């Protein structure tokens, strides 16, 4: 077992009720390129239409509702290493992000947000005149 060995949720709570819906904190990557910030969040089990992305007062919040799994009527649990519930996490946006043009895409349990940098935060090529 090598690098790929952290699971995707937050803190450990023992003896939690078996089927109580909770809210979990998704693992994210944040990457920066010249023009954009990209936020990639693992929110498995969600559907595109159940994901809410909003910016309010400079706070970006992603929330993804996840239905409880259907295990059938007489299922006996044998192993419970993670809980299932909504994913939610918030980020404070700096002035460098143009929050009016955020793009969100969801595929295979991964939410990808593209946050264009504000004009003043983009790298600029300065023309050099020769006199």
């Amino acid at each position, binding site marked *: *077992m090598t690098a790929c060995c952290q699971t995707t949720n937050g803190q450990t709570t023992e003896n939690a009720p078996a089927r109580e819906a909770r809210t979990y904190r998704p693992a994210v*990557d944040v990457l920066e390129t010249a023009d954009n910030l990209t936020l990639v969040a693992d929110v498995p089990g969600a559907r595109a239409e159940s994901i809410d992305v909003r910016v309010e007062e400079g706070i970006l919040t992603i929330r993804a509702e996840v239905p409880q799994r259907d295990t059938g009527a007489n299922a*006996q649990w044998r192993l419970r*290493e993670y809980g299932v519930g909504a994913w939610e996490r918030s980020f404070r946006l700096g002035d460098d992000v143009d929050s009016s043009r955020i793009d969100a895409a969801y595929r*295979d349990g991964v939410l990808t947000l593209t946050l264009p940098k504000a004009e003043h935060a983009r790298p600029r090529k300065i023309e050099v005149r020769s006199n």
Partner: protein
Amino acid sequence: MLTRRVFSPVAVARPFPIDREIDRLFSGFFADAPAWFSQRGAAAFPALNAWEDDQALHIEAELPGFAMSDIEITLNGRELTIAGARNETPAQSATFHRRERPQGRFSRTLTLNTDIDADKVGATLEQGVLRITLPKAEAARARKIEVRAA
């Protein structure tokens, strides 16, 4: 590789309630290490849930961003191995401000408590959730199975 008996009495739920903190998008290059790093550094990947009914064992794992072709499921007698890799390669010019999502290879092996009809094992991968259905062998089904509360 980590071996674990699916049907050992250990069945501690491990849900992770959100703390309502607000992250900064720019983390200051890991000045604040991601919370999971200290808390769960040794956790096996992927975390697994498993349940059993009269007909089958069911095992579920969260593998967001994986394709079925990235995942290898092997049943050898009663030993089930789930292995695979996630290798996302970002643009070379990209700078990471946070990197919490697991990358690289993983492998987990479970020892099942019952014989499986290996020809009828099925797996689905939907919205990043892998579900493996392992139908019990005929002989195992007929037997009365003592069920302990998890």
